[in-house]
Structures are given as C-alpha cells and as structure tokens.
C-alpha cells in the first residue's frame, strides 16, 4: 500500500517538475537582455523592419503568452531552429547524443567498477594504510579540473609518447563510420564485423574514457566509503555482531544495505555527468552533444541553448525518477 501511495506522490510531481524545467529554460535566454531581433535584423534594418520581425517571431505578445506557445511547441517536439546551421534543434540533438552517451556510459561503468570496490575495502579497515592512500588519492583527483587533466593526458600520451591518436573526433580520418545501430561507433563496427573501424574507435575512446573515469572514481570512492562506514556502525550490524555471526555474513548484510544508497549516489552523479562530459568532448573535439551545446552558448544560438539545457534537465530528472523507483524495489524497509 505504501508503495502505491509513494509512487502516486512521486509521479504526480513529475508534471509540475517538467513545467518548471520548461519555464526556467524559457526564461534563461530572456533574462540576458541580448537582443535576438537586433541580431536577426542586422545593423542596416530600419525601425519598421525590426518591428515586423518582432511581430513575426511573436515577441510583441505578453510574456505569459510567449511561454504558453513555447511550452506547447516543446511538448510537440519542436524546439525551434539553430541559426548557426539552420537545422531543427531536435535533429541536431538526436544526431549527437549517442556520441556523448557512448563516452559517458563507458566512463561511468569504469569509474564505478574502480570506485565502489576501493571505497568498500577502505571502509572495512578504516584509518589503515589502504584507507589513507585511497582517501588522499581521491581528494587529489577530485581537485583536478577535468579539462586540465584531459590536456595533460593529451600532452603525455599523444604528443610525448605517441600512443594516443590526435584529439580530433571519434575515428581516424580514413575510416568510414559503421552503419548506426546503437550509436556507439565501437559497438556498431563490431556488429558490422569491421575490425579496422572497431580498432580505430576503441583507440579514440581510450584517453577520454581514462580521464573521465578517473574524475568519476574520485567522489565515488569517498561516497562509497562514507556509506559503508555508516552501515557498519549501524545498530543492526551491532546486533548481528552480538548474535555472533561470522565475518562473511556480516559483510554480506552490510553490502546489501550499502547497495541502495550507493545506487542513489551513482544516479545523482549520472544526472550531472551528461553536462560534465562536455568538457572532455571539448578538449578531444568529440563532436557530441556537449561540445555542440557549449558552442551554442558561446555563439548565442538561443534555440540551441534552450534545447541543450532542456535535454540535460529532462535527462537528469528521469534519472532521478528511475533511481527512486530502483530504491523503492531494492530497499527492504520500503516494502513493508
């Protein structure tokens, strides 16, 4: 019964949440006082022409009406056109998002596979050598800016050692991209049996993935350790110790109870990392959603900026929702 109630409350909040997100996105490009009409009309336009453009764009209407029109078209999948390319924003996003997701998902998988076990091991024996070393290491890599680490990695592995390919996209210039199935060049070329393309794609992935997964691992270690320590210090673990359970059993109980908060944490990470991946994309000229979005922000491409921010926010909220549902299923205390 509680589950149904909780679910209903959680889902009921989705609608105002999405409306709020659309509203903030709508306001985002309007607070600046940058004049889109002036930019469109150009310096030679007269007053009448500016007024005409303003009317054509619907900018003479009151703000709430503009918002209503914007919200309506967004809900129909129309995000306007990018003035840089002249193409619909939604098309631009859809062609690029798979490149970002490829980088993001591989990095997050790797970062989690390193971060969670290290954090758990550190928590098992707090304040011992392993704990101290992992703590300092994670603090250092937590303090290194993503883009700077990417630049340094490029300098060492591309220019210095010559191991990595040049930071220009996801494939060598001479290699044709495989037919799109999943959107990941690596997986797609494996599916197509094109070993040359697969090798090229993997080679281009290594360095950005390495950098980004290191960035992800650092806070994961810290959080996992904190979560596991809290569980190990909890009353039910003390009770289990009093019962005289073996070390293995206690570890199993602790692990199972750490699972839910760790999932919650990784979900929260994933939600913000689609934005953070933009910096890696920028340095490696990855050509994904992030690089495109940063470019749109720099050049004042309003429709594209709105589309980018909206996609990020909707992605984050759906991740939060999914995480909440997983927690609901996995958390034994919620099931009563």
């Amino acid at each position, binding site marked *: 019964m509680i589950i149904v109630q909780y679910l209903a409350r959680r889902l009921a*909040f989705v609608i*105002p*949440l999405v409306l*709020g*997100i659309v509203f*903030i996105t709508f306001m*985002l*490009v309007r*607070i*600046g*006082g*940058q004049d889109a009409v002036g930019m469109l009309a150009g310096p030679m336009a007269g007053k009448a022409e500016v007024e005409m453009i303003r009317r054509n764009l619907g900018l003479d209407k009151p703000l709430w009406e503009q918002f209503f029109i914007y919200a309506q078209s967004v809900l129909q999948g129309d995000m306007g056109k990018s003035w840089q390319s002249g193409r619909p924003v939604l098309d631009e996003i859809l062609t690029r998002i798979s490149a970002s997701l490829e980088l993001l998902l591989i990095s997050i998988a790797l970062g989690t596979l390193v971060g969670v076990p290290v954090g758990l091991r550190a928590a098992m024996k*707090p*304040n011992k050598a392993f704990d101290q070393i992992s703590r300092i290491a994670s*603090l*250092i890599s*937590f*303090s*290194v*800016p993503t*883009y*700077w680490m990417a*630049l*340094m990695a*490029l*300098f060492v592995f*591309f*220019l210095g050692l010559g191991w990595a390919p*040049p*930071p220009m996209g996801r494939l060598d210039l001479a290699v044709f991209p495989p037919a799109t199935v999943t959107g990941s060049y690596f997986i797609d070329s494996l599916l197509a049996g094109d070993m040359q393309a697969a090798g090229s794609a993997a080679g281009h992935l290594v360095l950005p993935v390495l950098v980004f997964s290191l960035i992800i691992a650092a806070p994961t270690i810290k959080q996992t350790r*904190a979560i596991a*320590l*809290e569980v*190990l*210090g909890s009353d039910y673990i003390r009770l289990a110790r009093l019962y005289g359970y073996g070390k293995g059993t206690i570890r199993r109980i602790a692990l199972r109870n750490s699972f839910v908060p760790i999932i919650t944490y990784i979900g929260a990470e994933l*939600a*913000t990392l*689609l*934005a*953070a991946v*933009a*910096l890696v994309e*920028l*340095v490696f000229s990855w050509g994904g959603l992030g690089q495109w*979005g*940063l470019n749109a*922000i*720099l050049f*004042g491409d309003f429709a594209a*900026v709105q589309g*980018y*921010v909206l996609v*990020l*926010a*909707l992605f*984050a*909220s759906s991740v*939060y929702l999914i995480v909440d549902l997983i927690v609901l299923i996995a958390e034994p205390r919620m099931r009563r």
Partner: protein
Amino acid sequence: MTTVLTTAAPRPSFWQSSFVQHVIGITRHSPTFTAGVVIVLIFTVVAIIAPLLAPYPPTRTFPDAVLSGPTAAHWFGTDGNGMDVFSRVLYGCRYAFGIAIPALLLMLIIGVPAGLVAGYVGGLVDDLLLRTFDIFRAFPTIVLALAVVAATGQSLIIVVIVLGFLEAPIFARIVRAEVLALRSSELVESAVVIGNPTWRILLMHILPNSIRGATAQCAVRMAWAIRVSTTLAFIGVGIQAPAPEWGVMIRQGAEYINTGEWWIATFPGLALVGLVLGLNLLGDGAQELLDPKGRDSR
C-alpha cells in the same frame, strides 16, 4: 614574607602554552585539516603580496620572448602574447579568492535565512522551497552558470552573483535539516514559553546551534566556486583574456599543447589544483573535527 615572590609559578615556555598545545591537538586529530590550513594560508599570502613576489606586471608583454620555455628570466616561460607565466600565475590567486569569497558570502546570505525560515515555519513555505530546489536540482549547475553568464554579460560580478545563487540551496538544505531537529528541542520550547519573540528565537537560539554543519561546508563551497569560475573562463565565458586568471591561462595554453608548448597550460593548472586541494583538505578536516563520529565508527 620574602618567600612570596619565589613561589610564583614559572612562566610556561612557548611549547607548553595552551595555544600551541591546542594546535598540536588539532594536528594530531586531523592532519588533513592542518595540511589544508597551511596550503590555503600560503595561497592567501601569495594573493596579498603578489605584486611584491611577481617579477613582472601580469600583462606586460616581451616581444622578443614570445613562447619562450622556462628560463632564468621567465621561470614558467611566456605565453603566446609574450607575457610572463610565473607572474600571471601569482596574480591568478587574487582572481581565485576575489571570486570565491564574495560568492561564498552570497551563498550564506541567501541560503542560511532561507533554511532557517523553511525549517522553523514549515508547512507550505517549506514545501514550496523544497520543490523549487528540486526543480533547480535538475539543471546541472555548470551549464546553468554558463548559460546565464553568457547571456547576461561577461563580467566578474555576474560570475560571482550566479555562483552565489546556484549554490545557496546547499546551505539552505543543511541549515533546514538542523533547524527541524532543533525546533522541538527543550531549548527552543523553553525560549517560547518564556515569551521570546520569534525573530529572537531564530537569531539567538536556533541560528548559533544550527550553523555548525554549514561551517564545514564553507571551504568545500569555496573550492567549488573556484573550480566553476575557472571552468567558465576556460570555455570562454565570463572573465576574458588577457586577465591573469587561471582558467583564461589554461584556455590560452590549450591551443599550444599539441605543438609542445606545455608550460602555458600546465603551471596555472598546478596552482589551481593546489588551492582547490587545500580547500578540500581543509573542509574534509573540518568535518572530521566537528563530527568525530563519522570518521572512526567501530
């Protein structure tokens, strides 16, 4: 009568004074805190006396020494404009603190009262505030900061205001949680019974007791503000060249990294890592000192 003078206790030596004992105690309890304090202090001093330490003004160009590697005349080399990287890195400390401190103050000024009111008043106000935070939580702060700063103007003040507003909810959340726990405590109950006005209870009884968790966050939030502001500058939004700001300098150096002029991006990056690490160590240590339970729970 004459013995009175001789029985006076000997003045404690410097190493036995309570202040030094206190410092040693803190260091033993949390070496990270001490390491953080030392690092941050060094950067603070550099920021204050940068003009005395720097061999050249930060934007002076050396036309005969453009893109010179590290030499005796230019310890950290020169950049594409022929400016001395070492002097610019030193002056960069001023930008870091000049952004982080006002941004932190703004976060506190907005966040703490919001958390106090939400936690104490509760009900609809609390719900409304939390839901608003939830909506903002959906936007990755870095992108929101980018979009707002790019749209509103490329100035230092705008960067500070945006950072302050974006992270204020963190303080509001922390304070709110503490206030909720305090609201039904005997301390507050007796204050109400005695007949204190609400503003007095909030200010005198609740605020001092709910601010502890927030203080540990201050250093971490400053580190965050420095990271984000340099990231903005690296992308090309906010502070612009030729300002001696670390993000700007790394952006300039990024153009040269693939042709081998590594020093332009490397040194400002190292300074940035050093200061952010120092602040994070300080924050981590402060948490440790304030909440010893979290560190070594057996």
